[in-house]
């Protein structure tokens, strides 16, 4: 990976956002809407239920914030590619001395920045609006975020690979892929709430261990490092599989001339 090339590709993305502030709507507005909806729902449930109501309900806000880490990281990878498609710049990039590693490295960096911006905003607002402090997770927050970032990058690579393989008509996958897994990711409810068969699906997703872990940590103050270890191990597998898929699809794209079709449509 060449750092200068990664820097140049990231710089292009930053230029894009500073040139057109309206893009911040996508980065700030939708997450804010989610926070407000889930935050006020949480407050309503807290005020209108007795003490027997599950304590975890207050963690819905934490779930909104951490889900955004995964979603923004995935979007960073997938939207980065689509920006080149939309601007008919794809061939300029792939005909330049840019390796797959350079390209992916820059998408990871953009995903990290996107997640950083959104999560910072949501974390600060949730303190002021709902007295919910995600930082009360302490140091455990770092492995939680790290695991969600890695899984988001992996999903981003898978989304991009599918779009390359199936063409511009599959663009919507850039937004849809994270929501394919969301029902099984234990974001807003525990894995045990799922039917037994689907619990196995949940246990195959690294993010389910993070969301379960977040609830446990906020409730007990203890961190289940073993579960986080499983999440990290699964993430290594997902990242490797997604990387292999991406490289193989790019090779198929070169075989079938798929990249040139993005420029002509």
């Amino acid at each position, binding site marked *: 990976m060449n750092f*200068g*090339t990664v*820097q*140049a*590709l990231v*710089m*292009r993305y930053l*230029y*894009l956002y500073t*040139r*057109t502030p309206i893009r911040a709507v996508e980065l700030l507005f939708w997450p804010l809407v989610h926070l407000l909806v889930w935050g006020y729902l949480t407050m309503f449930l807290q005020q209108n239920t007795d003490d027997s109501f599950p304590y975890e309900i207050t963690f819905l806000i934490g779930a909104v914030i951490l889900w955004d880490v995964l979603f923004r990281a995935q979007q960073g990878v997938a939207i980065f590619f689509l*920006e*080149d498609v939309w*601007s*008919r*710049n*794809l*061939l*300029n*990039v*792939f*005909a*330049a*001395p*840019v*390796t797959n590693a350079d390209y992916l490295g820059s998408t990871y960096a953009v995903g990290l920045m996107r997640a950083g911006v959104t999560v910072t905003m949501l974390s600060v607002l949730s303190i002021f609006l709902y007295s919910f402090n995600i930082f009360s997770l302490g140091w455990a927050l770092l492995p939680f975020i790290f695991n969600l970032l890695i899984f988001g990058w992996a999903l981003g690579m898978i989304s991009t690979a599918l779009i390359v393989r199936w063409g511009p008509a599959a663009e919507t996958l850039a937004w849809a892929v994270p929501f394919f897994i969301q029902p099984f990711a234990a974001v807003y409810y525990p894995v045990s709430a799922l039917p037994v068969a689907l619990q196995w699906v949940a246990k195959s997703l690294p993010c389910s261990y993070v969301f379960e872990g977040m609830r446990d940590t906020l409730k007990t103050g203890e961190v289940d490092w073993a579960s986080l270890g499983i999440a990290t191990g699964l993430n290594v597998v997902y990242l490797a599989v997604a990387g292999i898929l991406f490289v193989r699809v790019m*090779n198929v794209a*070169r*075989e*079938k*001339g798929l*990249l*040139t079709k993005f*420029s*002509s449509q």
Partner: protein
Amino acid sequence: MLLMDSPVLQVTDLTKAFGEVRSVDGISFEVGKGEILGLLGANGAGKTTAINMILGIVTPSAGSVQVFGEELHASRIKILSRMNFCSTYTQLPGNLRVWQNLKVFGKIYRVPQLSRRIDEVLEMLEISHLKNRVSGELSAGEGTRLNLCKALLNRPELLLLDEPTASLDPDIADKVRKVVSRIREEEGTSILYTSHNMRDVEEVCDRIVFMHKGTILFTGTSEETLKHFEKDSLEDVFIEVARSGGIASRKKEGEP
């Protein structure tokens, strides 16, 4: 200026099949140092597919592409850093300012003294006054010249130009042709040039490769091409090749 002893680009038996269709069918040609080779043919002749294979965007089904004496598939990134391309079918991101687009690609190509080089290429294409404009607001002709600026940023030793004058008025097209000739003269750049504009070809190209349905019909200078096809102008040759594959005049290159 021409040094054909050691071709900068050597294409050998290059073939690309998409299913049953052979878009490029066993073509061979070379571009010497400082040479401008015109790649001509009607729509669907296989020119753009050939260029995409030379850029490594499309993988050949058979044959080889050697650039600077090295196999493209083995040293793709190293080779691409010494070449560049401009196509009428691509654009630079429309949301970025002209200088921002050039700065991004200048960094990707690791151009030394980038700010100065950006000013140089903008001046060369006579669009210095557009430096701070948003790229998406440029006219088609200005956009093409911006693309050319991107292609010249790294002082490429091999430049692939895919219909660079397609959207330009005669005045600007003439200026672009002069720039192309100038960089060849001053920097010894080797250029592969596709165009449907026969004036471009006559004025700029040293030799011409005439393609039809993925194959090469003839390779030679303008004069040799006219003589071969027994026509008075390259435009007449182009029309005959497009309509009859040149069969009316001559057989395929290499045939007895």
